[in-house]
C-alpha cells in the first residue's frame, strides 16, 4: 500500500539499504571477532601487564584541548609493525573497510528515507533506532581515528548495533509516513538528533564499560595462583588495560552528558511550544530525567573515593539500562505524549 505524501519506491530503497547495512556490519563483525581471536594485538594486550601506563585515548569528539600531537610511540608502534601484514591484521583492516562501507550504506538508507518522507526521518522507533545505531558505529570509527590499537574490539561495538538494527527492522519497523502536526517542527531535527547522538555515544561507552569490567575481573582473578578463568573472563586477556578502557568510557560520557543536557533543554523548549509547558513529567520526560541523574551520578562517582572503578562502571551501565528502558518500555508499554512509536 502506498501512503499519500510518501515516495513509495524511495521508501522501499531505504529499507533495502537498511538490510544491506546490517549484512555488511555482520560480515565486519565476524572479521573483527576473528582479528580479536587470532591477531597479535589481542595477544599483545594479553601479555602487557595492566600496570603498564595507559595508552592515550581520546573520546569521540572530545573537546579540542585534549587532542594529542601524536599517538604515543614506544611499544604500540613496535608491536603493531611486527603485526602488520599478518592474516589477522589484514582481516582486521578489511573489517574496518567493511564497517566504513556499512556506515555509508546505513547513512544512505537514512538519507533516502528522509527524501521519501520529506522530513528528518527519526519520528518513530524504527527510525530512531537506525539513527542511534549509526551514531554508535560512527563513534567507534571516530575512536579508531585516535586509537587504532582498539580496532580488534570492533565486534563488541557492532554486535549491539546489529541487534538494535535487527530489532528495529523487525519488531519496531513502521512504514514511512508523513509527520503528524505535533512533530512538524524544526525542533524534531534538533532535539531528536541530539538525543540520538548522545545515546548512540553512551551505548559505545556502555560497551567499553562492559569490557572494562571484564578486563578488571581478569586482572583480579589471573593474579591469584591457581585461578581458573571462565569463558567470559578469559576474554579479558586480549583487552586493553583496564585503566585505558575506564578512561575512554569516561571521555565518551564527558562528551555525551553535555549533549544529552542540551537535548533535554531543546526538548523542553519544544514542549513549551507544542504542549504549553516546558516540563510536565510525561513518562518520557521522567525517564530522560532519570537517565540524566544516573549519568550525573556516574560523573560524581568517578570522583568519589570508594566509588571509583567498579562501582562507577556499574552506574554507567545502569544509565544505559535507563536509556534502554526509556526507548523500549516507555515507548511500547507506557503511554504518554511522546507516543510516536509508530507501532499499532
Amino acid at each position: 500500500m502506498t501512503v499519500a505524501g510518501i515516495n513509495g519506491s524511495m521508501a522501499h530503497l531505504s529499507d533495502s539499504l537498511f538490510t544491506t547495512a546490517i549484512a555488511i556490519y555482520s560480515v565486519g563483525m565476524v572479521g573483527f571477532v576473528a582479528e580479536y581471536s587470532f591477531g597479535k594485538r589481542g595477544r599483545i594486550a594479553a601479555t602487557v601487564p595492566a600496570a603498564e601506563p595507559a595508552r592515550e585515548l581520546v573520546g569521540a569528539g572530545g573537546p579540542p584541548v585534549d587532542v594529542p600531537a601524536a599517538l604515543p610511540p614506544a611499544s604500540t608502534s613496535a608491536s603493531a609493525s611486527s603485526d602488520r601484514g599478518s592474516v589477522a591484521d589484514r582481516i582486521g583492516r578489511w573489517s574496518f573497510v567493511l564497517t566504513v562501507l556499512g556506515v555509508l550504506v546505513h547513512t544512505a538508507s537514512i538519507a533516502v528515507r528522509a527524501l521519501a518522507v520529506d522530513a528528518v526521518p527519526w519520528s518513530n522507533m524504527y527510525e530512531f533506532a537506525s539513527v542511534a545505531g549509526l551514531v554508535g558505529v560512527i563513534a567507534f570509527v571516530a575512536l579508531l581515528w585516535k586509537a587504532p590499537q582498539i580496532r580488534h574490539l570492533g565486534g563488541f561495538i557492532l554486535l549491539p548495533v546489529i541487534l538494535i538494527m535487527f530489532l528495529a527492522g523487525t519488531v519496531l519497523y513502521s512504514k514511512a509516513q508523513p509527520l503528524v502536526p505535533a512533530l512538524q517542527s524544526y525542533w524534531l531535527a534538533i532535539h531528536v538528533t541530539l538525543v540520538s547522538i548522545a545515546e548512540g555515544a553512551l551505548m559505545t561507552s556502555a560497551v567499553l564499560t562492559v569490557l572494562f569490567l571484564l578486563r578488571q575481573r581478569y586482572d583480579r582473578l589471573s593474579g591469584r595462583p591457581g585461578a581458573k578463568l571462565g569463558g567470559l573472563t578469559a576474554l579479558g586477556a586480549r583487552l586493553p588495560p583496564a585503566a585505558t578502557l575506564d578512561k575512554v568510557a569516561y571521555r565518551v560520557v564527558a562528551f555525551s552528558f553535555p549533549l544529552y543536557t542540551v537535548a533535554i533543554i531543546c526538548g523542553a523548549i519544544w514542549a513549551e511550544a507544542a504542549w504549553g509547558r516546558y516540563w510536565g513529567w510525561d513518562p518520557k520526560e521522567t525517564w530522560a530525567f532519570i537517565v540524566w541523574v544516573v549519568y550525573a551520578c556516574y560523573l560524581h562517582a568517578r570522583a568519589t573515593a570508594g566509588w571509583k572503578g567498579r562501582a562507577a562502571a556499574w552506574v554507567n551501565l545502569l544509565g544505559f539500562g535507563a536509556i534502554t528502558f526509556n526507548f523500549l518500555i516507555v515507548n511500547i508499554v507506557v503511554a504518554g505524549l511522546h507516543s510516536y512509536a509508530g507501532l499499532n
Partner: protein
Amino acid sequence: MNAVLQPARMVWRRLTSMRTALILLFLLAVAAVPGSLLPQRPLNPDKTNSYIASHGGWGRFLDSIGMFDVFGSVWFAAIYLLLFVSLVGCLVPRIRLHARAMVRKPLPAPRNLDRLPESGSFETADAPSAYATAARRALGRRWRVVQRDEPSGVLTLSAEKGYSRETGNLIFHVALLASLVLIAVGRLYSYQGSRIVVEGAGNGFCNTVSQYDSWRPGRLAAQGKITPAPFCIDALTKFTANYTASGEASKFEADVVYRRTVDSAPEHARITVNHPLRLEGDRVYLISHGFAPRVTVRMPDGSVRHDTVAFVPQDATTLLSEGAFKEQGAPGKKQDVGVSGFFAPTPRDAGGGVITSASPQVSNPVLGIFVYVGDLNYNGLPQSVYSLDTSKMKKIGAANLSIGQTTKLPNGVSVTFDGWVPWASMQVSHDPSQGYLLVAAVAMVVGLLGSLGVRRRRLWLRITPSSDGPDASPTVVAVGGLARSDSGNFTTEFTSLLTRLRDAARPEHELIGAGRE
C-alpha cells in the same frame, strides 16, 4: 553548648559530603520511577481514580503515600530539598576556595622535579633570565606563570592552567540551584486556563478566571497575587484540520481574532500546534479540536430554537463525540426539551442500529439523538454542559439524523440536524519565570562544558645557570608536570609541552634527555 554543636556539625558535614550527595542523587532517580509507571493525578485524574478503584486496598495505600502524585509528594520534595541544602553546603566553601585560588600565585616549585608524574630536562646556551622570558612566551596566555629566585642564581617558573574547569563546575551547580528556585517560583505564579471556542463570531473569551472552562492556578496565582493580562480572544474565525489520504492528521490551524487589551484594535493570528500565539507574558495554545453540531428544535409550545453546542470527543482517533442540547421552556411548565446525543464524523454502522465513527474526518456525518421532555433540573447547582440530568425528564424518542434530516416526535417536538461547525480548545499559559529558566539552563550547559572539557595542569621549570671551571655545564632546564584532573592524556600533552619549551631555547647543546619516570 558544645554538646549541641558537635552533633549538628557532624550532621552538616555528612550532609554536605560528596557521598551523601551521590546517594541523594540516586534516590532522586529511583523516586522518579513510580511517577512514570503509575498513573499520576495531575496528568490524568480519571485514569488515576479508576486505577485506585480497581486495586482496592493496595490502591488506597499507594494513594496514601503519595504514589499518584509523586512529583508533588512530601518525600520527593524532601529528597530534592536535602540535595539542595547539601549542594549549597558543598558549593559555598568551594566558591570561597576557588576565589582564593584565582588570586593566589601558583605554588613554588618542589625541590625534586623528577619526582613528579611527568618530568624531563634539557640544556640551553641561554642565560637563565633570558630563557625564563622565552619560556613564558612559549607557554602563552593560557598559563598563569610566576617567576621565583632561588639561592645561587637558580630561577624557577611555576605555571598553572585550567582554572575555568572549577569555574565551569561552580557555574553549573549554581545555575542548577538557580533553575530549581526559578521552577519553584514559576509554579507559584503560573496559571493555565482552557476554554472551548466554537468557530464563528461571538464565541470568544477574555483572559479572566470566570471565562475559562478550566483554570489551574499556582498557589500564589490562586490567591490573586497576579492579575492576568487583559487580552481577549474574540473569535475563532476558521479552524482547519487536514488529513492525508491514509487518515493521518497532517495539519491543524486555528485562525483567531484577538485584542491585546480590551481597548486595543483587533488583530488576526494563526495558531498551529507548534506555534502558539505569544502575548505579553501569556501564550495561547491550540490544544485540541472537535465538532459542534447545529440543530433546530421545535418546542412543545411551538416556538423554534436554533442551537450550536460543542460535543466532547470520546475517542481520540475517530473523534466520535458526545454532548447535549438543553432548551428551556417557560419556567415551571415542565416543558423543557433535552437532547443528548453523539456525533459521528464518518459514521459506520456497527450493527443493530448502533453507529460509531470510522475516522476523524467529516464525511456525511450522523447525529444520533435521544430526546427528552420535562424539567432540565436547573436548581442553581452547576451542571455539566455535556450531559443531561434526565431524572425529571421523559424520553420521547431517538433517531440517527444526517444533515438536513428532521425527526418528528410526540408533544409537537421536532429536531432538525442543520449541520456542524468545528471548535478548538484554547489553552492560555502563564509562567513568569520560564525565560529566566532558559538563561539558567544555558548557563548550566556552559558550565558543564568548562567543567568536563577543561583540564587542570601544573608545570614547574627550574633553570640552573651555567657554571665554569673543571665541571663546566651549560644552563640546565628541568621541567616537571602534574595533572590535577583527567590525567588521561597528560603524558602526550607533557611531551609536546616539553618539545615546545625546548624549542624556545637557543639550541646550541644537545638534548640530555626527556624521559619519564
